[in-house]
């Protein structure tokens, strides 16, 4: 489904600084309905990799294919169509600060062209799923860290995307909420979604018992079918 080959990403700072190699010749494939965890220390290149998968950034070298489509050759006009296939839970949530919790979720459905009736039916459902129905009219700044995270998850799920991309989705949660979220991701996986999870939470990885790709200094150092968190 997703084919990553020879991806290198170098950040060039000012001419005096050494360029930073965030990803170095990374290649692997993700099959449909796979649950893949990408682990590594902070700065190993996890977030950069996820950014490249949704074409938020362009690689210095290499290609990423989604099915048969080279995502970096997509025109600006067609890029939104690619992104609508993903449900992304961003590390920094990326919530709309001027929209309420309800509107944050509904916006994605509006973008997809859903009818008003569909929006009125689905948004409360997904807010209930993440336990935020009673916070529907609150703005993000009125929510706690955990609530923001759950709202970000609700927004990523609302349009039933093929692929869920979760960048440290449990980073700000207590152990109880962490496993609630992981349970939810597993459930989505069972329902047929492809899930890509980036994390540095050892506990989470060891419990999942799914494929684990380990990144270190921008390189893939391990790719195991039923991996453990080893660094």
């Amino acid at each position, binding site marked *: 489904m997703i084919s990553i080959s020879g991806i290198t990403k170098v950040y060039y700072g000012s001419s005096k600084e050494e360029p930073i190699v965030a990803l170095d010749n990374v290649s692997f494939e993700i099959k449909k309905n796979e649950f893949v965890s990408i682990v590594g220390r902070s700065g190993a290149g996890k977030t950069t990799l996820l950014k490249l998968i949704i074409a938020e950034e362009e690689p210095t070298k290499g290609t990423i294919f989604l099915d048969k489509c080279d995502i970096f050759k997509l025109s*600006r006009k067609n890029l939104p*169509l690619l992104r609508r296939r993903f449900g992304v839970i961003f590390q920094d949530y*990326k919530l709309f600060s*001027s929209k309420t919790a309800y509107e944050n979720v509904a*916006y994605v459905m509006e973008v997809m*062209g859903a009818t008003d009736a569909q929006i009125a039916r689905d948004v409360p459902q997904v807010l209930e799923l993440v336990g935020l129905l009673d916070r529907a009219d609150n703005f993000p700044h009125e929510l706690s860290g955990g609530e923001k995270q759950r709202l970000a998850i609700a927004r990523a799920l609302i349009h039933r995307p093929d692929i869920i991309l979760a960048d440290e989705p449990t980073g700000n949660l207590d152990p109880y909420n962490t496993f609630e979220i992981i349970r939810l991701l597993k459930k989505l996986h069972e329902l047929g979604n492809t899930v890509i999870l980036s994390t540095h939470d050892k506990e989470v990885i060891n419990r999942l018992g799914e494929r684990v790709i380990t990144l270190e200094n921008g390189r893939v150092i391990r790719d195991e079918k039923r991996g453990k968190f080893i660094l």
Partner: protein
Amino acid sequence: MLTSLKRIIKNGCKDFSRNLSLSLATIFIMVIVISFPTALFILNPASKILISNIEKKVDISVYFNEDAKKEDILSAKEAIAKLPEVKEVVYLSKEETMEKFVERHKNDPVLMESLAELGENPFLASVNIKAKDLSQYEQITKFLENAPFAKIIKKVDYYERKPIIERIFSVISKINKIGIILAVTAGIIAFLVAFSTIKTSIYSARKEIEIMRLVGASNWFIRGPFFVQGVIVGVISALITFSLTFAFCFFLNSKIQSLFFGVDIFRIFLENMGVLFLTQLGVGIGLGVISSMIAIRKYLKV
């Protein structure tokens, strides 16, 4: 398509009301910007009226010799009236001039006594000439000096009036030039201020714009609400400026009329109301929308 349009409009209105303080600040700046073309719109016809009112007050007089015959003077008047530059020629006989003088100075005993002491009519018959344009008096004077009836002319007072006429001429053209330069400069400054105000408001929304791109919104779905906000700001600013212009012209009309030789700005306003409002609307919406679209461009690159 229709649903998208409806949502774009709804989101635009919502964003406008949620960022009310920023929206109001933008409207305030826009009112100032729209006021410049409005001022030009009112002042341009007003200055033309003012110029023609002043020009109406300028004339030259041709004085004829004491012994000139009335028929000769009248035929000279006919010849002058035939000149294409001449707008109006009025003949004043010795007697009429005297009557006018007495009428004007009847309350001045010194003048009246001196006149009585003279015992006769000291005034000369004259022809009063008004040209179509200030610049034509020189030509008319040249014609008078070389005309066949030049021998019966005693004096043309053009040379006495020349400095005043030239002064008026240069003041008017200076006022016009300075006015245009001022209006254009101030207009450009106001435009830049409005543009950067709008740019600031979009800068504050840049993160949201990036998120919109990342969740798969098309560029038009993102631009749309900003476009709608630009239109709302433009329309409200135009309405406010229009009302202010109305109030200004209505309440200050009598003062301006007495100060500036009867220039009726309220009439100018009423006569040009439609075009004026469309211009204000055009400037307001155009500036609001174009600035937003330019400012938003760089955030859509994600």
